[in-house]
């Protein structure tokens, strides 16, 4: 068996003449967190629905855990947990009753279900409101209940469509912790989101969607190398000398740009931190900060779509 839990080849979705998803290839590995990014209408939700067999494909092939969602949707849906964007529950039922209904649909024996429901509610900190009606739940609680459903299901793959939309920063943080918790249970997680820094913090790999195509795919560093160019960006804060002039002489440094008062951004083709520090100090300047800048997904995203717009 291959190590991929999801394999899509030439996955295509047509809405009339519009190619909502344009023959994409996608591999999700076991136990990784994979992020789908892209502007509104790029085709993320459509891709997710096709992976689950909830909408028909117009072409291409998909395999989820070795099953074909078109021909064997029940097998796929037994093993994959799905949190739709803006998930809904039955308001007149309690959290526990909602999960009990799912458990019955999953054909989990009653006694085992009771246990699994309680455990899963505990894992998302909803155990003290287990018997409250969902009507009284906040957005964040509903989202967590959706995660609890996936935990209860013991899914091997979790597909989360914009799990953090509409959550406050603290709730977002908590939810991302729960997503990491899923990964610790060796669940592969596929999530779509617009919160780039959050995605960067949890995702092992990301795919950047643009008008139905996957424009870029890989780790954030790989994407940064492709879009921003190879190089090690540094942030330097120093005073007492002309930093730009001093550092231009350091071997390997390509660019030095002033970002603010006393702050410079240095791009080099290798790790030049030691040389930079030495040069500044030996030139009589005082070095107050020297930081290796992680490439930010935000930057990659913004730059990519700027260029895409220019190209168009």
């Amino acid at each position: 068996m291959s190590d991929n839990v999801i394999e899509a080849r030439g996955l295509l979705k047509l809405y009339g003449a519009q190619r909502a998803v344009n023959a994409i290839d996608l591999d999700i590995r076991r136990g990784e967190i994979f992020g789908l990014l892209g502007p509104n209408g790029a085709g993320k939700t459509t891709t997710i629905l096709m992976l689950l067999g909830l909408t028909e494909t117009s072409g291409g092939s998909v395999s989820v855990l070795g099953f074909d969602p078109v021909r064997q949707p029940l097998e796929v849906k037994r093993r994959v947990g799905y949190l739709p964007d803006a998930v809904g529950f039955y308001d007149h039922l309690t959290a526990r009753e909602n999960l009990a209904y799912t458990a019955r649909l999953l054909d989990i024996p009653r006694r085992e279900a009771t246990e699994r429901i309680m455990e899963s509610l505990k894992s998302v900190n909803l155990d003290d409101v287990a018997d409250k009606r969902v009507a009284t739940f906040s957005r964040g609680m509903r989202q967590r209940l959706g995660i609890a459903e996936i935990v209860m299901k013991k899914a091997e793959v979790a597909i989360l469509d914009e799990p953090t939309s509409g959550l406050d920063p603290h709730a977002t943080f908590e939810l991302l912790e729960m997503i990491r918790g899923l990964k610790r249970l060796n669940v592969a997680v596929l999530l779509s989101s617009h919160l780039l820094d959050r995605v960067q913090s949890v995702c092992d790999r990301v795919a950047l969607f643009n008008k139905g195509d996957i424009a870029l795919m890989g780790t954030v560093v790989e994407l940064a190398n492709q879009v921003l160019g190879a190089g090690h960006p540094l942030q330097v804060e120093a005073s007492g000398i002309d930093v730009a002039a001093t550092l231009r002489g350091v071997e390997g440094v390509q660019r030095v740009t002033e970002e603010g008062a006393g702050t410079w951004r240095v791009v080099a083709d290798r790790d030049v931190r030691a040389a930079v520090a030495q040069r500044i100090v030996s030139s009589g300047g005082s070095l107050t900060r020297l930081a290796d800048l992680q490439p930010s997904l935000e930057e990659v995203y913004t730059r990519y779509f700027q260029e895409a717009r220019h190209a168009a």
Partner: protein
Amino acid sequence: MQRKAAREGSPFTGLGPVFMKEFSDHLSSARMMVLMLFVIVFGAFPVATSLQTLRSAVDPNSFIFLRIFTLEPEQVGISFTAALNFIIPLMAIGLGFDSVNSEFNRRTLSRVLSQPIYRDALLLGKFLGGLATLAVALVALWLIVLGAGLILLGVPPRGVEVARGLSFLLVAIAYGGVWLAIAILFSVIFRSTATSALCALGVWLFFFILWPQLAGALLVGFAPSEIRTVDDYVALQSVGLGLMRLSPGTLFSEAVLGLLAPETRTLGPMLPSQMRGAIMGAPLPFDQSLLLIWPQVTGLIAGMIVVFAAAYVIFQREEVRA
């Protein structure tokens, strides 16, 4: 575009849980209480007055229990079955008008369909859950009427009366099924629950108010310039009857007539050949009555299946995303 490949797994996986959930949701809902209240208020009046009338004229040979259902008391002007004829659709519409679109609006549909279940089971479970609820309500009502009859008339119903009464119950449930299917069809077509309720009620009003007029008008169009023979007349009558039978209400009232008024020999225009050898007013045996109403019953069931199938086809094509 590729054809949809054969799917694996039973389409009825998960039918049981969906059915149980719908059934218990209905039974515990405030809406169900309102509907029951409605039925009791509308049904109690004709039944009470019928019982008043029947108490004073006891004839041990007649089907006195069945008369409770069919008697048209002067004070009320409507029999219990006639009241049911238009209340049952209302109940069915009340139970079904939001069955699918409310799942869309609550955004529960995609979550439920991401569990191992086909859409087939979801729709069928909803239909059967509604039908079972309707059946419970009708059985309760039927028992109440029977109980009231027992107490006030002081005689137990005869076996054949019970048999006819039970058949009547089944026909009533089938009739409710037709309207439930219609309500569910609209709940699949329209995302807005108000629109689907409005459309279902529109169909109901159409069949009860407009259709008799319209059928009459159409019949005038069909009529030959002059009617010379009895055959001409009979032909015209049967066209008219055929038109009226497109309305589920007509089928129901005919079936009820055959079952609860045992002296009914024919549900169409009476021909001289049918009169021959018949003692007017003598009751038909139960099996003969059943045979008589069989086409009406199959008509109701066929209508229910056709409408449900339409809802099914549309639901299969619908996008799950809200």
